[in-house]
């Protein structure tokens, strides 16, 4: 077989198992032998073995974002806790729980009081950070040990 740009002596050096350039009877005998096809699914097997063998590669950027989410959840949780206790939310909730009549008689006022004292920003922040962390962890799990895909013509 010829390859562009290859020196003449190299081309002649390659074993051409074709009748017109065979050197001797042993070469001709081996040329009659059809090569065995590779086992069915060989490429897929290689790719799966590679996926199992290679080290987990995590994106630093995504990992940093996940850690930031965890820290945010911790910080927001701390602030929310302080607000719940120091801002009177827990006390209000305890009062409403103990006085069901008040809740049934003036639900609007109870709700307004709760909206006024509850740390909603911190609570919403915690929810958002949890959602973001879920997405990040799912992405890290998918890409960390993903197997390479065979081409359409692969075995």
């Amino acid at each position: 077989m010829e390859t562009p740009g290859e020196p003449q002596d190299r081309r002649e050096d390659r074993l051409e198992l074709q009748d017109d350039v065979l050197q001797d009877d042993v070469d001709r005998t081996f040329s009659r032998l059809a090569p065995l096809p590779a086992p069915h699914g060989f490429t897929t097997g290689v790719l799966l073995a590679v996926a199992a063998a290679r080290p987990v590669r995590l994106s630093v950027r995504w990992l940093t974002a996940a850690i930031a989410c965890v820290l945010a959840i911790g910080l927001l949780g701390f602030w929310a806790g302080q607000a719940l206790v120091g801002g009177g939310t827990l006390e209000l909730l305890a009062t409403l729980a103990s006085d069901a009549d008040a809740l049934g008689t003036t639900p609007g006022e109870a709700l307004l009081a709760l909206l006024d004292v509850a740390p909603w920003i911190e609570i919403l922040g915690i929810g958002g950070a949890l959602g973001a962390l879920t997405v990040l962890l799912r992405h890290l799990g998918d890409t960390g040990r993903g197997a390479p895909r065979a081409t359409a013509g692969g075995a």
Partner: protein
Amino acid sequence: MEQRGADEALARLARDGDDAAFATLVERNQQRVFNFAYRLLGDYDEAADAAQHGFVQLYLSLPQLDLARPLRPWLYRIVRNRCIDVIRQRRTVSLSAAEDAEDDNGTALESRLPDADPLPEELAERADLQQLLSAAIHRLPAHYRDVVALRYTSDLSFAEVAEALGIPENTARIRFHRAKALLRTALRELM
């Protein structure tokens, strides 16, 4: 028609994270590599495992490989080493006198006068040619068997065969030509 450097180009892409390029690299070389392992081992499943091992090692070694040099000699060297390990493991557990005598047969074959008479033409027409040639190759001493298996299953030049086997190019040429004479002797005895 294969292009020189195509495998190396695919390897560079694979090294940069293109898994489809690595899959293509495997598909381009799987048949030759498998046949090389089969010539050495004579066992279909063991040859498949050895060939797969070679490609896995190739992938894991991509960051360290010098892709300015031809890739195939390195790949065949890895597969050959794996085949040697398999053969050694066979001998460790084997209680068969026939397998233990393989080396003795190879030495005895090598000690005979080289056979220069051409092989009979009808040999090429035999239905069991695959088995005959495999048996003949397995009768060769190991250092001849490697060269013959590489030359008849891959498209490596003598320089690349030498690189794959870690020997000088002239040694590879000499071993190949001597091996062919021994193959004639072995094939006549097996016919």
